[in-house]
């Protein structure tokens, strides 16, 4: 029942993001039928075109933003709308309310990563091009693991900040702060630490610079550290949730 409740609360966000990502991936690939190869780069491989438009473009930005937004919600929001007393009257602890919400958000985020995995190879085949499923799978894996970080940031913001819009603003600004930190500070020299670089291989050796396919070994150490960071953020969120006294 708690999982169903979490689904009902987040489904509009998830479905809106899913619809937009599907539409974008489909139209981007269909447009390649007309505008690929670009006039200025006639030798550009199709896989690099897809990487620029999807894995390092619009799709990636929407995914990062919506992963954070999927993490929002919960008791603080219900407190504002006056329904938290009903939820807290259920015979479950606050942690039991929090973790189904986290699990549903993570699952929804994982489904979003599967959209380009399904749409890009299928739509590419429909226009007579080929995009290898294996590489789409590798990018989906990278998106899913780094996505846990954004979901966890959204969950933490929704608990730490009172006010739905304040937590939303914090969630939206988190990737921007991350991007700024990795472009404007000494961290620029360490792209492997940036989730925004790791998710699509930008400036990392595992990405083939010509074909833009994830051909090398994935940065498992960095991915593991992102998972640990997500667990830490969710741990802090759990502690904060338990300490609330409303």
């Amino acid at each position, binding site marked *: 029942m708690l999982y169903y409740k979490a689904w009902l*609360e*987040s489904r*509009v*966000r998830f479905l*809106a*993001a899913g619809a*937009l990502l599907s*539409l*974008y991936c489909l*139209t*981007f690939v269909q*447009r390649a039928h007309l*505008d690929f190869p670009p006039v200025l780069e006639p030798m550009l491989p199709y896989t690099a075109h897809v990487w620029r438009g999807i894995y390092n473009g*619009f799709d990636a*930005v*929407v995914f990062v*933003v*919506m992963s954070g*937004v999927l993490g*929002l*919600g919960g008791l603080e*929001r219900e407190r*504002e*709308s*006056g329904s938290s007393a009903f939820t807290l009257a259920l015979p479950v602890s606050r942690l039991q309310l929090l973790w189904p919400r986290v699990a549903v958000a993570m699952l929804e985020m994982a489904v979003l990563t599967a959209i380009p995995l399904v749409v890009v190879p299928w739509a590419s085949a429909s226009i007579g091009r080929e995009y290898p499923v294996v590489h789409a799978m590798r990018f989906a894996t990278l998106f899913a693991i780094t996505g846990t970080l954004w979901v966890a940031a959204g969950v933490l913001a929704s608990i730490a*900040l009172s*006010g*739905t*819009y*304040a937590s*939303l*603003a*914090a969630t*939206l*600004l988190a990737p*921007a*702060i991350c*991007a*700024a*930190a990795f*472009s*404007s*500070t000494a961290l620029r020299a360490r792209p492997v630490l940036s989730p925004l670089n790791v998710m699509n291989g930008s400036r990392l050796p595992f990405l083939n610079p010509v074909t833009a396919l994830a051909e090398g070994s994935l940065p498992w150490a960095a991915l593991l550290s992102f998972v640990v960071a997500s667990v830490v953020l969710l741990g802090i969120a759990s502690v904060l949730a338990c300490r609330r006294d409303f």
Partner: protein
Amino acid sequence: MLWYKAWRESRSRFCLAVAVVTVYCLTVLVRARTAFPPPEAPHLPYSAFVWGELYAPFRAVAFSFIALMLGLGGLQRERGAGTAPFTLALPVGRGQLVATRVLVGLAELIGVTLIPIVMVPALSPILAHQTYPASQSVLYGALFLSWGIVWFAGGVLWSVLFRGEFTAATAAVLTPFAYMAVYGVSRGDQRYPVANPFSMMSGGLDRSVGGRMLLTEPLPWNVMLVLAIVAAALVAGTWRITARQSF
């Protein structure tokens, strides 16, 4: 009192945006002291460095989010929280509530825009030992604001159309992406280059911007006027929808 109410409802978003933009500008300027020019581009002009850090298209996207977030709120949100009857019991029309919220939000948006306009020319000589013309900051600020008010008005409109806070917020967040998706599908980059918000905000309409990324042509006043009209139409639509709502 309505002004104070609108301020109280939006101040956390505004303060958060101000804090992030201020810290970011300071970071850029402090970094410029040691890391400018970058080793990979030793002849990069300081003005191009500032453009890349503050006025490039990705920064325009972040600013658009701030504008959209500042537009959210209002009666539908209060309806969801159960406080709308108290607000509606005040001896003011719904139009006054909308107008106050819009004006406070616009003032906050201008406030956020002013941060780099003031900080970069003023602090560049102190923190980065470089100079950046104040006139360029004002011009880029005006370009950011021209689309910023459209995004802001879009946020205001979504907030009166949807009762659920996250529904309005999701619609607002996805608005720039949906716009760019439609723009791409309709091959807008070839047919209507002036309608690309992030390109325009970054000075893309100035044909002689050059490698220094300094605007040399007059601002595209006709495009900015159209954008102001679009924003006004969105706000007018919001006003009318709010006045017709029956709760």
